[in-house]
């Protein structure tokens, strides 16, 4: 069977729900698409700890400090798991980290924004992680089986992060008027990035990730699921969602103000308020820990 016929048969297989393992034959296009997708996910987990890490020393109680530290630890673990999946597709980890730090590859929009108060930490852990889990639940059905399998552990840990975030928000909503105001302010600032997070609606005809079922569900479907579950949970606390157009019609479909796709594009290409500062932190940290890698590699080659 020549490569062309083999590729067609492969695409028919993945398009109809078939699975692919790391050592299966795959067309170069598919391999490249999965690698790009998983690499961006890994980058996002690694960069995603930075907004929250800023609050570890400023958490209001010991319990919250431990919970936040634990969450950061979980996210870095997710990054390592996902870099490993991506490495198996042929790109070395060192190259992925170099590309991230040089701004050649992307990470999700939400991690390019600043945090203003402890309320932001609650809103992020609750709603950003919730939007992520909606995608990640869907990815459990990805055509690339090694990636789908990592989602089981990732989704389990994310679900505890969401509970932690919701608990932080609830504690503040049951607190003082100024604490409630901080939560409302955080929601006002984070709603836009949240609505952009799943990306603009795409057409399978042009969206290879969707056609080849690397992504099992489309962006709009994910956004609709997120709204259906979380809008009622936000409103029942007395919070106001900062979109006057947001409503659900009789068919259950949500209507909303069109998210600013220009902002999304600009932010993910490194022009977000905190993009450069956070990438600079990664570069500094990488340079400062080079002695650890050198020492371990020297020991390893001396022992060999």
């Amino acid at each position, binding site marked *: 069977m020549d490569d062309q016929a083999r590729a067609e048969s492969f695409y028919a297989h993945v398009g109809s729900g078939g699975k692919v393992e790391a050592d299966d034959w795959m067309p170069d296009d598919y391999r490249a698409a999965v690698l790009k997708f998983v690499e961006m996910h890994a980058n996002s987990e690694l960069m995603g700890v930075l907004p929250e890490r800023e609050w570890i020393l400023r958490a209001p109680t*010991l*319990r919250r400090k*431990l*919970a936040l530290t*634990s969450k950061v630890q979980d996210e870095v673990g997710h990054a390592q798991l996902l870099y490993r999946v991506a490495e198996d597709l042929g790109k070395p980890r060192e190259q992925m980290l170099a590309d991230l730090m040089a701004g050649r590859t992307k990470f999700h929009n939400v991690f390019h924004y600043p945090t203003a108060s402890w309320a932001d930490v609650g809103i992020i852990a609750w709603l950003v992680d919730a939007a992520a889990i909606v995608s990640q639940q869907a990815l459990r059905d990805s055509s690339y089986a090694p990636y789908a399998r990592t989602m089981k552990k990732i989704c389990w840990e994310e679900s505890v992060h969401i*509970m932690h975030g919701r*608990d932080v928000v*609830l504690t503040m909503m*049951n607190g003082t008027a100024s604490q409630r105001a901080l939560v409302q302010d955080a929601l006002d600032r984070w709603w836009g990035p949240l609505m952009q997070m799943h990306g603009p609606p795409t057409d399978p005809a042009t969206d290879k990730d969707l056609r080849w079922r690397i992504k099992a569900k489309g962006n709009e479907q994910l956004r609709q699921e997120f709204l259906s579950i979380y809008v009622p949970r936000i409103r029942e606390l*007395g919070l106001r969602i900062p979109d006057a157009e947001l409503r659900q019609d009789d068919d259950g479909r949500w209507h909303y103000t069109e998210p600013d796709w220009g902002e999304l594009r600009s932010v993910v290409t490194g022009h977000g308020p905190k993009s450069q500062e956070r990438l600079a932190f990664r570069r500094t940290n990488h340079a400062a820990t080079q002695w650890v890698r050198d020492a371990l590699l020297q020991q390893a080659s001396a022992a060999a």
Partner: protein
Amino acid sequence: MIHGGSVRAPDEELALHYAREFYGRRQESHRLWIVPREAIVELDDPDLLKPPFDRSFKKPGGYIIKHKLEAAKARAGEGT
């Protein structure tokens, strides 16, 4: 010594007598410590008394929100 209860009295002498009436009338007490309320220093910080050595903050069981959620919904219902 265990906490027996409280009394309301205008002065120390009456407080002693009331305490004896409520907590010592049937020889149930061997000794009573009677302390004015203002002298009590309270410690109720969960970080100090119940630090989470069980790592419950990493588990779903560490986040039972039922009462907090009910309280928040009730407050939201009342407000305008």
